[in-house]
Each structure stands twice: as structure tokens, then as C-alpha cells.
């Protein structure tokens, strides 16, 4: 039978030779290997001083995006909740009142929007499902906590800050095709 891998070895029960029996060459060989590790590059990252570099498309804590004028993009359509395989997302929809046009982009918005971070598997399907580009996953990680109910993140945590300088850049998460598509103003979707 052909070997499945290049590393497979034929095992035999043949008697050990004299040099194998006294073990010393094997021990010295082993010590040579460990000596190599003594001078090898260490894999440890000295955490609080140095943090490990995250990829731009890392799937961490979610963000609810605002549009360029600072209005919430989410319309509480519920597609993210449907797409979520872990059923981590819940929301309650509400109707925009007159005078709230500067807060919410469309007539319907999410009055509460909660993600249970203990259920979430950070697959990013909510991001894919969202037709309004309202939800994205970010490089930020979900921090540890002492109590379970603190892991249900509401809009107070998830919503992007209003301040234009503190906006979270998600353009790196989008493929060139998507960025190209967004320039097409014939799509109502792309009109601010």
C-alpha cells in the first residue's frame, strides 16, 4: 500500500544496536535540540505592554453604524436576527416621530437592539445579511466580565459615537466590488 504521507515510517521490532542501547548519542541529540530552542525566537507577547496585531477584517465586537450625517442606519428589519445562527440578536422596532429626522435615517428604527455576546459566535452573517450597511464587526474584542447579564450588549455599547472624529472605519472590511457598487447612485440604497 502506498504511504499516505511523506512522513510515514515503517515500524520494525529489530534489536537495538550497541550505540542505540547505551542511549548517550540519543540523549546528546535531544539536548542539542533543546539547546536550539534556548536561543530560538520566543513566541510570547508581553501582553499589557505589547498587543498582538489584529487583522483589519478581524471579527470582533459589533458596531451599529451611523450615516455621514450621524443618523442611525438600522431600520429594524430583522434580517440580521434571522441570519444569526446562534440567535444572539433581538430588537424592538419603533416608528420615527416628526422632528427625529436628524436621529434616524428612515421612518422605522430599532428602539432597542441587543446582542448576547455569550451566544454570538462572531461568524459575521449579520454583517452579510444587513441591507442597510448598519451592522459591522470590528477589531475590538469583547472584554471579560464577572456577570452573565452584562454580556447582553444594548445600543448604548453597540452604537457608533455621534462625534465624526470618533467614527469607526469599516471600509477595509468591504471588498473592492462592494466599494465600487456603493458609488452607483442609481441604487436607492446608496443615496444618503
Amino acid at each position, binding site marked *: 500500500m502506498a504511504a499516505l504521507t511523506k512522513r510515514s515510517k515503517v515500524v520494525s521490532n529489530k534489536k537495538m544496536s550497541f550505540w542505540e542501547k547505551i542511549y548517550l548519542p540519543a*540523549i546528546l541529540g535531544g*539536548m542539542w535540540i*533543546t*539547546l536550539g*530552542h*534556548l536561543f530560538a525566537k*520566543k*513566541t*510570547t507577547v508581553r501582553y499589557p505592554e505589547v498587543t498582538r496585531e489584529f487583522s483589519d477584517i478581524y471579527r470582533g465586537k459589533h458596531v451599529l453604524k451611523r450615516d455621514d450625517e450621524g443618523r442611525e442606519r438600522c431600520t429594524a428589519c430583522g434580517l440580521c436576527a434571522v441570519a444569526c445562527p446562534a440567535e444572539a440578536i433581538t430588537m424592538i422596532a419603533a416608528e420615527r416621530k416628526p422632528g427625529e429626522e436628524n436621529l434616524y435615517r428612515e421612518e422605522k428604527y430599532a428602539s432597542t437592539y441587543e446582542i448576547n455576546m455569550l451566544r454570538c459566535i462572531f461568524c459575521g452573517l449579520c454583517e452579510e445579511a444587513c441591507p442597510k450597511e448598519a451592522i459591522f464587526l470590528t477589531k475590538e474584542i469583547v472584554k471579560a466580565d464577572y456577570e452573565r447579564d452584562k454580556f447582553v450588549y444594548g445600543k448604548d455599547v453597540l452604537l457608533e459615537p455621534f462625534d465624526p472624529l470618533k467614527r469607526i472605519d469599516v471600509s477595509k472590511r468591504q471588498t473592492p466590488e462592494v466599494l465600487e457598487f456603493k458609488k452607483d447612485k442609481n441604487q436607492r440604497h446608496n443615496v444618503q
Partner: protein
Amino acid sequence: MGTMLIFKTILASAILLLSLVVAMYSTLIERKIAGFFQDRLGPNRAGPWGLLQPLADGIKLFFKEEFMPNTADKFLYILGPSLTMLIACLTSAVIPWGPDIVINGQVFSLQMADVNIGILYIFAIVSIGVYGIMIGGWASNNKYALLGAVRASSQMISYELAMSLSIITIVMMSGSLSMRDIVNQQQGFNWNIWYQPLGFLIFLICAFAETNRSPFDLPECETELVGGYHTEYSSMKLGFYLFSEYINMFISGAVMATLFLGGYHFPFIDKLGLSPNAFAFVSFLVLFAKITFFGFIFMWVRWTLPRFRYDQLMRLGWKALIPLAILNVLITGVVILLNQ
């Protein structure tokens, strides 16, 4: 006489302090080297490069709960670690730490006691070391501790035989049991290891077994015996047991350097034209470097080889090392006779 007494007191304190500090920092170096061998960094949070780690460990041990099983024999329970620690510190008395120094025209020897049976003294003290472990294991009144102690004592007794036999060749060559004589016969590069490589190898392996170091750390084999003879010990009593292991490592390194690697001798340092005291200091540094080298070997082997099984340990001791040591004695005897 008075100045000699003062000098000996200072020397004894210095040696004791040296072995304690070295043992203290061996724990840090051990953990550092363990880290490096496993591609980690090792402890580096307490002070720069983790230099305060041994201090932190010591404070931790002192503040831990002093637990004593209520079925334990109280006197023996305390005697165990005390004896182990005492024995560990006693051995350093006959090791020559350097050549003589001169203060105000008076010559002082950098050796606590030039006993003319220095080697016998070392073996006598090392054999008592078994009692510390055996008493501790017995007094704990715990089956794991007892099994660990029994293992430790049978291991130490078995390996002492091969160890003594490998030393006999050195005694045959030098014709003296005094450590100072043996060192002085290894001037320059005339070290015993070149004449007795087999003896050195046997002695090295036995030193691993005598100090209960890996790969012969069966007495405290965590996987089977929950810590072995010190299962029931906590706080500084446990600290004494662990600490004495490091002192033993330091002292056995010193003994090996003295017997096989020429002690404080090194080629060409006597030709530098240094004053006697500077010469003594450099010689001491040479000895210390050799001891450090052995300390590194101890740690290196620990993180390379897996632990022996008990029957393998006994087979190696009785069926390999002792016959080899006897053969070595025979060959040495024949060569000495032929050279006469």
C-alpha cells in the same frame, strides 16, 4: 589563633550565604531556562527581568498556611525538613573554594576544614540526607508520602554505590582522600576528567539521582505520588525541602568541579602574575564558573529527558552503572600497576 577563629567564622558565614543566595537565584534561573527551552520568556514581572521573583516566592512561602496533619508525628515532622536543610548546608565545609590568601602576612586557607578524609566526609553527609526525606515521608502518615520516601531512599542508596565506586578511581590516582590534595594535583589543564571520562560520566548520572533531579525525580513524581515525600508539607517546611534541592545542586556541582574539572585551577591564570589575593579571587571565579556550568547542565537535562520508570531506574543503577564503575576501577588499577 584568635584571628584564625574570626576568619573561619567569616568564611563559614560567607559560604553559607553564598550557597543560600545561589540556591535562591537557581530557582529563578531554573524557571527562566525552563521558559527559554519551551520558547517562552519565563517569569519577568517581579522587578527587572524578574530579579525579585525569588524574594516574592520566599515571602509567599512564609505567609502560606502552616498545615500539619493531626495524625503526624510532630517532632519527626519538623525534624525532616530541618535535617534535609542542615545536611545540604554541611557538605560545603570541605570544598576548597580557592588557593590560600594572605592578610597582614598571615596565610588563610579558603577551605573551612581540610579534613584528610574529605571525600569520606562528603559521602557520610550525603548518606544522612536520606534520613531527612525518609523521616519526613514517614512522619506525614500518608501513603503517598511514605511511598515517595521509600522510593527516594532506595534510589539514593542504589546510586550512592556507583557514585562511591566512581570516586575510588580518583582516590587511587591521587593517593589521598583530602579534597585539597586532589585539587592541587590537577594544576593547569591536568584535570581528572581527561583520565577518568567514564568515572566522570557515572558520577554525573549519580549526582542527578542523588539530588533527586530529573530524569531521576521519582521521589516527588507528581503524576503518581501527588508530590511524593513532601505531599503533606506546606509553607516554609515545603520551602526547605525544595530549597535544599537547589543547595544540593550547587554543592554537587562544586564537588564535581573539584574532583573532575580541576577545582579552581585553569590553564594560564597562574602565569598572569597576579598578587596572591587577586589570584585567589580569580581562581574562585573560575570555580564558580565551573559550578554554574554544572548547574546549567542540571537544568538542561531536566528539560530534555523524560522521567525514568522505577524499574528502569533500578536497572540502570544496579545493572549498568555499578558494573561499569567496577570495570573502571579494574582498568584504573591495571594502568596504575603497569605505570609503576
